[in-house]
């Protein structure tokens, strides 16, 4: 049974000191240790971005996909390797920007996998442009006059497509995040966790302090995670004034919505009971076709 440090590769993380990615890295390792997953039982997929640089820091069965394209290969892997668990890590620009189409269509499939979004509301790796989750009017190098779009509402979009597990986390709360990961990893179906991951270098608005002043835990309220409509209503808290006062915009974290028992995409497939490589042990007799 591996310990957290055994998941570390030989490469030292190169993220900026204080980067929100460190907390997410640690929380996921702890979740895996608690679940006792062996390295050969699951594969991890990353998009391109600072989150994706994490691929170098993990010693696992890894796949560093193209920018915005982590979900399709992860889906195919899951469908042809029913013997494996699948974890996807994506960025906000990566997964909600360029990868938006895959995001929505993957949710529709309810494939059994866990999707973790590193949401720092900015493009980190490419030095600070606006991301799809940047707040309205945020000024960046690509939007000096301020972002004119409304931000992407990942929770609301997921709910609109009947996602079966939708949660939000904060990399500043390791224990809570670890728990969310465990719930997501054990959920049967597609689990989305959008994690607030402050970028200390390029996002001077949504800092750790900004979130500390605003986050609250749904579990600590009377929240009913089986009410999709209320969950949608709550998702609208994504939209607020840029750098609003702490009392004007509370930021809920925890499980917005969950639904157990819905069949997964795999359940509907006849072809996936065994690994796909077993189809090619010898020529297939096609004389019948």
């Amino acid at each position, binding site marked *: 049974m591996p310990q957290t440090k055994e998941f570390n590769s030989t490469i030292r993380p190169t993220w900026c000191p204080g980067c929100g990615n460190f907390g997410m890295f640690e929380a996921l390792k702890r979740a895996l240790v608690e679940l006792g997953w062996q390295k050969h039982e699951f594969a991890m997929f990353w998009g391109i971005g600072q989150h994706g640089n994490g691929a170098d820091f993990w010693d696992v069965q890894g796949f560093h996909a193209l920018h915005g394209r982590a979900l*399709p290969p992860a889906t195919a892997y899951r469908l042809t390797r029913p013997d494996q668990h699948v974890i996807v890590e994506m960025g906000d620009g990566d997964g909600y920007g360029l990868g938006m189409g895959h995001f929505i269509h993957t949710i529709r499939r309810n494939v059994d996998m866990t999707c973790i979004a590193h949401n720092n509301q900015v493009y980190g790796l490419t030095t600070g442009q606006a991301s799809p989750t940047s707040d309205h009017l945020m000024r960046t190098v690509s939007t000096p006059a301020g972002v004119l779009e409304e931000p992407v509402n990942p929770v609301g979009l997921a709910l609109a497509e009947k996602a079966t597990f939708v949660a939000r986390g904060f990399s500043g709360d390791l224990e809570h995040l670890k728990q969310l990961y465990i719930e997501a990893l054990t959920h049967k179906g597609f689990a989305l966790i959008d994690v607030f991951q402050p970028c200390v270098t390029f996002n001077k608005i949504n800092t750790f302090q900004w979130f500390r002043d605003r986050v609250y835990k749904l579990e600590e309220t009377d929240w009913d995670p089986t009410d999709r409509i209320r969950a949608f209503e709550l998702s609208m808290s994504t939209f607020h004034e840029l750098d609003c006062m702490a009392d004007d915009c509370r930021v809920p974290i925890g499980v917005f919505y969950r639904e157990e028992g819905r069949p997964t995409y795999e359940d509907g497939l006849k072809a996936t009971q065994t690994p796909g490589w077993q189809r090619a042990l010898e020529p297939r007799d096609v004389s019948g*076709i």
Partner: protein
Amino acid sequence: RVFASAGYSIFDLTEYPSLIKGGHNTYHVRISADPIYSHVMPTDVLVALDRQTVGRHVGELTEAGAVIYDPDDFEPDESDLKGRTDICLVPVPLNQIVQDAGGIKIMRNVTALGAVLGHMEFPIEGLLEAIKSQFAHKKPEVAEQNITVATKGYEHAQQAHCDFPFKLEPLQGQPERVLADGNESIGLGAMAAGLGLYCAYPMTPSSSLLHFMASNGDANGVVVKHTEDEIAAMNMIIGGAFGGARSMCATAGGGFSLMVEAFGFAGVSESAVVVGVFTRPGPATGMPTWTEQSDLRFVLHAAQGEFPRVVLAPGDHTEGFELAWKAFNLADQLQTPVIILGDSYLSDNRQTSDPYDLAAVTVDRGSLVTEGDAASHGEALDSEGHYQRYKLTENGVSTRILPGVVGANQLVNSYEHDEYGWGQEGEDARVRIDQNEKRLRKLDLARTLVPPPGRYGPSEAEVSIVCFGTTKMPAREAMKWLEADGVAVNLLQTVCVWPFPADDVSAFLDSAKRSLIIESNATGQLEGLIAEQCLRTFDENLRRYDGRPISPELIYSKIKEMLGQPVELNDIGAVAVREGGL
């Protein structure tokens, strides 16, 4: 399938504009007892669903050929027939027949096919059999409806009062032959190779391959995914290959445009995948239901950066089957993407062939480890026993240990990377050079594995032809006619267009009396490639780019012209010969 099962050769070219209804649809039904390599423009029986069709194709009708039409649609007049009097008009109430059977408009096709047989007084049983098997997986009514209308069409046509010059009797004692379109032949080859994952987004002319896979996937344990777009399809098969499944996608040139980035990802990540690119006339949406060979250079150079790729171009349906299963072996042996480059002319046309050689199919997965413990594969480990997915080797191929195998931790990476797959080290100059050269070295290995060029005709010839892909079919047909005229012509077909068989082509051209290159595009893409790879040029070229396939007549007349014996051609659509590359 009807004629085929009766032992005849058949080649049927369906032209259909990209409309479900409307436009003009044409069948060139041509029947002969000796092997046919391609459709020919001249047509013995023309089924005309509208007036235009007659006008457009009457010129192609053979002496005393027949036109089957529905008098309710129109009545062919003088001008339609361009004054020809030798033609047999066969009125058949196609629409009425379909209506009475409560069928949908498309069923006019089956009705017409029945009429063709009736007109030729060829027994209808074969057709009825074909219908039954074709609609086996549909509701029984469907088959019944089709049988009814086919029979009705048959009976009506028999009443037409003009004598069909060649009556047909089923041949006895001939071997059963396969009738398939190109997509079916390729699909069959992929299935035979042990396909595990097929991903595609519909796009003419590749869609029917998705349908083939979808209808046969479950029964054969193949995961078939109609994806949200071509980008997903290409990225998915890389994920499938990561897991060890033999993975394929197919599309037309436009869909491949969206796959380009991931195609390069397959190259740098050394993923064993097969990609079908079936060309239709471009640019952009272009002419969806017509044919062209204008994506050759595109697929050779698609994607940023440099990496090895293999490009195979089937010349006919039998090659479609063979190259399909071979493509999977090559992909695994080389751990790099392999393209099957076809076109609408191959994808859409049903053609009979001798039964495919199923016994010849082999599965070679190269150096692949699917089970057990990485520890027992020392050649793939570093000194501390850590697996190196991209370990440097002499021929460039590294041992591929699948996830699930204990100790197979690895990083399949879209970044440049070191032997483990780590991206950070990939920025080191030495590491980059080693990995880049490692990958490119695989092309030398590829040269030893890919199928050789196809050679046809005598070694000594008046004219030597070079072509790739489907132009092989009309070329061989034309060669048959020229042989009959006593003109010796030989042909070299580059079955594998990348890596390019430069030595074979150079030698062939050096021993040519007169050289001719044939391709269905405007800029002479193969001609340019040969200039680059062989530093050689041609005496003449024949190019077509109006969406119609190059016909044997064009080649026949071109060669006659080269020999100073020009022949008359009825209007067969324009052909332009351009000098120099663009």
